[in-house]
């Protein structure tokens, strides 16, 4: 399986993502934001970081970069596009996903492990994953998901809230909401579920000695689903 990670000026999780994808068997290529063509890929990843220094709004400038046109075309043809953290912010700024990631409610940068509940397994990302609750890492200043009432209803009616912040037992409540996100939303799909944007970083949880292995479960499962 082939993947490509887009690098923007200010991306800082691009290499971690490259390491994670290769560790579980993807043939990964790095693509510079100023390129116009994507290599032939089964998966495109928009990595975390601070593209363009978070100028104007997080992800807004990256959302207009040269390569993004090809990413949008790829996504609209049904290609898998995964946006992590800043990648999620970029996906909302391009309009591929609804809503926006606002500043965290407590105005603090949050860097810690969290638990997320997998709400929908009927898609390439989570199909047949053997866990309902994953321990992943978040590191963000703008992770507070917000959208209009109509958009929220659309997400709920179509079961598009991919992952929600929860506690270790999988209970989704106010205490398990790190950043004020609407309905504890940590990640969402588009209607066709080929696009996934989420704040938590699976690529940071791929080593049992350094962090944890729930990211490994995510990547292994994704690869299996693409075979």
């Amino acid at each position, binding site marked *: 399986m082939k993947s490509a990670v887009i690098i923007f000026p200010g991306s800082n999780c691009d290499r971690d993502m490259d390491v994670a994808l290769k560790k579980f068997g993807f043939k990964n290529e790095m693509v510079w934001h100023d390129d116009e063509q994507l290599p032939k890929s089964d998966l495109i990843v928009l990595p975390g970081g601070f593209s363009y220094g978070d100028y104007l709004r997080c992800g807004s400038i990256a959302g207009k970069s040269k390569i993004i046109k090809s990413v949008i075309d790829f996504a609209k043809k049904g290609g898998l596009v995964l946006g992590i953290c800043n990648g999620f912010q970029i996906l*909302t700024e391009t309009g591929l996903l609804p809503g926006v990631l606002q500043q965290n409610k407590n*105005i603090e940068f949050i860097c810690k492990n969290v638990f997320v509940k997998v709400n929908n397994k009927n898609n390439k990302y989570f199909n047949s994953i053997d866990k309902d609750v994953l321990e992943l890492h978040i590191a963000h200043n703008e992770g507070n998901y*917000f959208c209009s009432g109509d958009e929220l209803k659309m997400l709920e009616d179509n079961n598009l809230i991919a992952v929600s912040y929860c506690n270790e037992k999988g209970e989704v409540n106010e205490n398990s909401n790190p950043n004020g996100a609407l309905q504890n939303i940590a990640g969402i799909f588009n209607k066709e579920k080929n696009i996934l944007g989420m704040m938590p970083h699976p690529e940071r949880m791929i080593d049992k000695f350094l962090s944890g292995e729930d990211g490994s479960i995510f990547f292994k499962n994704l690869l299996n689903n693409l075979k």
Partner: protein
Amino acid sequence: MKIKVIVTLKNGVLDPQGKAIQQTLNGMGFSSVNGVRQGKFFEVDVNEKDEAKAKIKVEDMCKKLLANLVIENFEIL
């Protein structure tokens, strides 16, 4: 021609920075401050002599980049 734009958060959208500024002002003794909303100001220099045409261009820029219409309103001054 320079066109000025103000971008503000829509009513009802949480503004944690505005809230923190309000609390600080209250703490400094400005007890009459009931609320603060923080926004952005842009001065766009457009190569255009006709003000109406320049403003139409800036409006398009606001819709496509300067404001995120999910949470923000813009006003061209």
